[in-house]
């Protein structure tokens, strides 16, 4: 079974193996130029991926705001969906006992805030990874 799972994993690769796999090969040298590109961001660099806050996705799409967005939709589709969406949105909104969770973290720590739901993992990310 293990062997079969390993075989499936090995086969399930994208159409080619890029840098990720190649770097494992001792004979393939990473050029200094590429190494520099892959270096972590320095504090002074303009990094558009620096985490400012970890946000709980479960609360981020606020049901009331979503309802408002529905109201602005094209008339035809709004008529079709609004009643259902608003009802569901109201229910979802009532369920929310706290406002959207957003906790600041240090810029590069990437830490998950204590009051947010756990970050997706192999085990619980809905089977995503």
């Amino acid at each position, binding site marked *: 079974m293990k062997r079969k799972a390993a075989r*499936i994993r090995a086969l399930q*690769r994208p159409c080619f193996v890029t*840098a990720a796999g190649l770097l*494992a090969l001792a004979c393939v040298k990473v050029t200094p130029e590429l190494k520099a590109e892959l270096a972590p961001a320095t504090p002074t660099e303009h990094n558009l991926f620096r985490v400012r806050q970890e946000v709980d996705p479960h609360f981020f799409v606020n049901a009331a705001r979503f309802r408002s967005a529905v109201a602005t939709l094209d008339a035809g589709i709004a008529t079709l969906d609004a009643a259902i969406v608003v009802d569901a949105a109201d229910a979802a909104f009532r369920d929310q006992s706290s406002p959207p969770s957003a906790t600041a973290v240090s810029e590069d720590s990437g830490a998950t805030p204590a009051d947010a739901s756990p970050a*997706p993992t192999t085990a619980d990310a809905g089977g995503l*990874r």
Partner: protein
Amino acid sequence: LKSLLLRALGLAACVVTVGCSFSTRQTSHFYDVPERVPARQLPPTIDFEGMPLRSGQIVLSESPYSTSFMFSLIPAEYHYFTHAAILVIDRGEPWVYEMTGEISSFPLYERPLDNINGKVLRRRLMDYAGPNLYVEIVEPPPGTNAERIAEYAREVYRRDVPFDPYFRFDDHRSLYCTEFVELALRSGGAAPNSLGPASQQRSLAVAKRWLGVPMDEALPAAYFYDSRRTVAALGQFPYRAAAAAYFEAKREIYWRLQQPDQRLGFIFRLDTTNIELRPEIERFAFNAARLFDRIEPKPAWGDPRIRAEVRRYADATFGPGPAAPSDQAPGAAVLSAAPVPYAYLPPRVSTAR
């Protein structure tokens, strides 16, 4: 000693290819798709797990590996999906024929991609789909001969045509995944796609130069995609809009990285011998897939609110991003006129090649 070396290399290849953690769970969700395509009326069709399948359909997929993030960055525009293959019904059972490569054990060459070997693999549909995050099966373009498409796939498989790790579309003695699908479609009479432009982002250019892949052109898997022709969608996300949100999160990452002052090191990290997705980037993408967990009904595939919410989520997480490109949210037409089918990307037609 040779055995040990082989084992060590195999292990290394496995570890680095897997990259970030992922689930080995089999596909557990089949999503409803609008029945716009009269697939059930097109013979010969089989009903497989409720999906109307037939030879010659195109299989588009998204893997959970960090390499799929790398692939997404290469074209000049962002696209859903990073792999394409052909569905063939053999003896009543659906099989996926895909051109794919993997690291060879020996010999080891200095040029990185010289170490990649591959050919067409033939696997049962669910064996193929299981480990993927998301898979769609779409009809080939109207007017194509699906049986000829399938026959081309079988022929390449029989001839053991090698994988082309250098992505040279002008040399068909070896093929890469989308080149294989493109030629299969052409053999079925489809109008040819032209290659699209590649991103010219500075940091990406360094990586491409190192790999030795084409700097200026790409043939993204999404060129074969038109959601009007989707006959089946399956994957590991709990609902289909979650898959869309995941793709939109990748779009945010794509667009931010395309800015000239951004570096690959902001989203990937070099961990001794591996290039992995940075954990905060991975967390962002999978958190984005959960944005609509508490919203009912779920937004439909192509609903522009998915992109809008993911963008807002990215801004909250990373700070405001650059101004969005002028592209209109795919699927905007779906909300303004429900009966109008949503086309994510019209095929590019050219007679240049």
